[in-house]
């Protein structure tokens, strides 16, 4: 197809899409005009019912817990897919790489501090997910990202413990499966799947929100190790370390 034909085909399509888009935008509710009843209902009931001060978490892990379970398995499937796709090619290439280190002490010191600070922030986001903004997903990605900094400021050798698939595969499965187990526990005890068990505790403390806390930790474990496994697979695709003098 020549460039001219392509433009001829594209132009009416663009005009049509533009018209539909403008129509859709014109029909939107005004900025900040929220009409759905769910947000108002949740805002009113979640804190008194579940003692969870972060309503988002109360929604994700309790009111809408089954959806979040599906999302956990989407992540699980994504990691399995990436691992299967990349492993075949990276398998034979697992040679010991030259250890390259950053020359600047300032960058290394800053990086090491970032590992510590990032990991702490990650754990904090996980632990207080149902009290303040945060939660297992965000905390898991932040913690895994902090661990990745070890690779950036250190070397392949420093990072090797965090590429241990034999240890991380089961841990990820424990996180993902733990979610289902909590749901099944409710089912076995005679109530509906994922019914909130274990008492609601005192609002605004770590001992609140019942099984939301357990589900949050299950998600945190699943996400942390899922992201670490993803990193491990992707880092295998590097032929050489990221150290600047090696370029």
């Amino acid at each position, binding site marked *: 197809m020549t460039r001219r034909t392509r433009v001829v085909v594209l132009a009416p399509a663009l005009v049509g899409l533009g018209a539909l888009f403008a129509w859709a935008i014109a029909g939107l509710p005004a900025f900040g005009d929220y009409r759905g009843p769910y947000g108002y209902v949740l805002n009113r009931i979640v804190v008194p019912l579940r003692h969870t001060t972060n309503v988002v978490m109360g929604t994700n892990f309790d009111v809408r817990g089954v959806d979040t379970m599906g999302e956990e398995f989407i992540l699980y499937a994504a990691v399995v897919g990436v691992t299967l796709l990349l492993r075949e090619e990276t398998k034979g290439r697992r040679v010991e790489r030259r250890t390259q280190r950053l020359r600047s002490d300032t960058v290394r010191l800053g990086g090491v501090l970032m590992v510590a600070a990032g990991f702490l922030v990650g754990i904090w986001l996980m632990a207080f997910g149902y009290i303040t*903004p*945060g939660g297992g997903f965000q905390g898991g990605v932040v913690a895994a990202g902090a661990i990745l900094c070890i690779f950036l400021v250190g070397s392949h050798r420093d990072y090797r413990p965090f590429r241990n698939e034999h240890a991380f595969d089961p841990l990820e499965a424990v996180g993902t499966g733990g979610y289902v187990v909590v749901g099944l526990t409710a089912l076995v005890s005679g109530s509906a799947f994922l019914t909130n068990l274990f008492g609601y505790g005192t609002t605004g403390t770590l001992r609140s929100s019942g099984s939301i806390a357990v589900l949050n930790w299950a998600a945190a474990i699943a996400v942390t190790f899922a992201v670490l496994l993803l990193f491990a697979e992707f880092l295998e695709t590097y*032929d050489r370390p990221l150290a600047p003098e090696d370029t």
Partner: protein
Amino acid sequence: MIPLQIVALALVALGAPLVVLTRDPLRQALVNGIYGVSLVCLFVVLEAPDPALSMLAVSGIGYPLVIVAAVARVRARDRGREDE
């Protein structure tokens, strides 16, 4: 809409075309990270801290790594071809 929200929205509107117009994939990963931070600002200004945290984690950590890994792999493959 308060002025702060307008500024945050304008930053996002400015950042998105910059990402598209950056040609070098490696540089694009970097610009995309900065664009992600502008989205984080927008979410915070719109009082949505939870998506802001997700966005920060994904656009700051996860996504750049995937892009950089892909770029490194493609370049290594190109280099391998040149050697043949």
